[in-house]
């Protein structure tokens, strides 16, 4: 680029706008976390200042940990997310391999059929999904959630992964065939390791909506045993409307694991989005 695009006022202007928006994006998060470490007087007296020794108080956290069964909800969320993710990635990669590797009749039709679910949200089938789960006795089990999320995640996973699998060299696979490897071995031993980076992208895309979903836990698994952390937080927050310490602490507890994971994986996620997953 030439010097024409680099002028000082313009750079300062760009930074000013971006900084302002960054502040808007982070302000509520910082505000909530900051105030969760304060006493009630501190929260209402000086909401915009960080906790000082005078206002520092962990009463909110002790209330939350004493009242809600958050560890248990957290486990449920973890089981549901990890299991759904595993099935989405495994089944999605297998189907993507079949669609991108073999020419067979109905190949593109199959691709279209699977792509349907990218645009049509699974939520619209809720009425019949609930009937199905009632009929098969899966209501209030984590299995129901795992099944639903697997179906929800598959279309996009197949779509993205088959794009990437087309790029795996044919020579490599044919060399494997000449060496007498079965198609299954080629898939699991040769192709899967090569598409691992794109699997990570799909994983992040799949994970966030599952972890954050409120609709299906509310409808399919609202029992105490199977509550996920999102549903648990929703109900807890509804009950403790007047206990500001507890609410702020619960919100912070819900924010922090996601935030930590995001800071660790943000590079992967952003690279995934910008590498043209949705082109």
């Amino acid at each position, binding site marked *: 680029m030439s010097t024409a695009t680099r002028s000082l006022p313009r750079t300062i202007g*760009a930074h000013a706008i971006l900084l302002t928006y960054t502040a808007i994006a982070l302000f509520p998060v910082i505000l909530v976390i900051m105030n969760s470490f304060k006493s009630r007087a501190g929260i209402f007296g000086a909401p915009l200042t960080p906790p000082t020794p005078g206002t520092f108080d962990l009463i909110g956290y002790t209330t939350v940990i004493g009242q809600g069964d958050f560890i248990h909800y957290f486990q449920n969320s973890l089981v549901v997310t990890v299991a759904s993710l595993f099935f989405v990635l495994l089944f999605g990669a297998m189907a993507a391999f079949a669609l991108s590797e073999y020419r067979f009749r109905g190949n593109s039709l199959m691709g279209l059929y699977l792509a349907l679910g990218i645009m049509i949200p699974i939520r*619209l089938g809720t009425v*019949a999904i609930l009937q199905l789960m009632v009929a098969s006795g899966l209501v209030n089990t984590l299995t129901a959630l795992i099944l639903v999320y697997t179906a929800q995640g598959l279309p996009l996973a197949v779509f993205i992964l088959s794009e990437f699998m087309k790029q795996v060299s044919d020579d490599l696979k044919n060399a494997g065939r000449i060496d007498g490897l079965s198609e299954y071995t080629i898939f699991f031993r040769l192709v899967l390791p090569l598409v691992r980076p794109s699997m990570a992208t799909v994983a992040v895309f799949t994970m966030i909506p599952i972890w954050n979903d409120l609709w299906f836990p509310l409808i399919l698994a609202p029992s105490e045993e199977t509550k996920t952390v999102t549903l648990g937080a929703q109900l807890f927050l509804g009950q403790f409307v007047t206990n500001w310490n507890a609410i702020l602490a619960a919100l912070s507890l819900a924010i922090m694991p996601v935030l930590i994971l995001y800071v660790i994986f943000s590079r992967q996620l*952003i690279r995934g989005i910008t590498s043209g997953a949705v082109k």
Partner: protein
Amino acid sequence: MAAAPKRPFRWHIGVFLAPALLVYTAIMILPLAGTLQLSLFRNINQSQVFVGLENFRMLFGDPNWSVNFWNALRNNVWFFIIHMLVQNPIGVLLAALLSSPRLRFSAFYRTAIFVPTILSFVIVGFAWKLILSPLWGVAPHMMDLVGLKSLFTPWLGKAQYALTALSLISVWQFVGIPMMLIYAALLSIPEEVIEAAECDGITGMAQFWKIKLPLILPSIGIISILTFVGNFNAFDLIYTAQGALAGPNYSTDILGTFLYRAFFGFQLQVGDPNMGAAIATMMFLIILGGVCVYLFLVQTRLRRYQF
């Protein structure tokens, strides 16, 4: 591959496809079809009776349903308009700034602005509810700092402002997605095109409007349809912030919350799966209509440039 004329039936293709197809068909496609079918039935004396389009006639005509339905649809359209008018322009602006060459800290900005997008609706809804609450007084206090305190009202509690306020909260949460997608599109514009423009003396704002914007139009199209599908399927934020009754006085009721109330019932109203299915069918048709408009009208007219 295709050259081999007679080969034995390739079982492995079936094995590779079967699990995905099975789960997808059983949990997604069949229930979707089942829901569409249920919308044509009604429960009379404990048995499902085929009533044709009677449920839809009730939905559009019977005041018990139609008032709420049209209200929810109207609100949903407004919800979508705000997203298109606020979220996408801000996203494009941020992406354009981020993609300017040699911008320092751009990775930091990208990461920070995307943070709200990864949070769940429950967190977002409650955090904003607290901030806008007159009880806590953060919002009036901050408006006081810039001398605008007189403009503060409890937005979420007033029927005329609540929906707009919630739409803006949703915009705040999702602005990262258009930003990222446009940013990716801007990065993929080849250097030569920009250099050619500069040789012709087109720089700065003119360069953005005349060169870059036409090239990223397909991405803007994708973002619009993603926004459309997301908005007409929204539920969580309204439910979290305003409850299933979508108060005050149904002013924030959108199709998602209306479906939830119809299906499960709320307070005195008894849940009705058939009416729920009818509403879900309407949402399906609206989303399908939007996707078709996009695929057949918008996408075919946007020229894609191959570099």
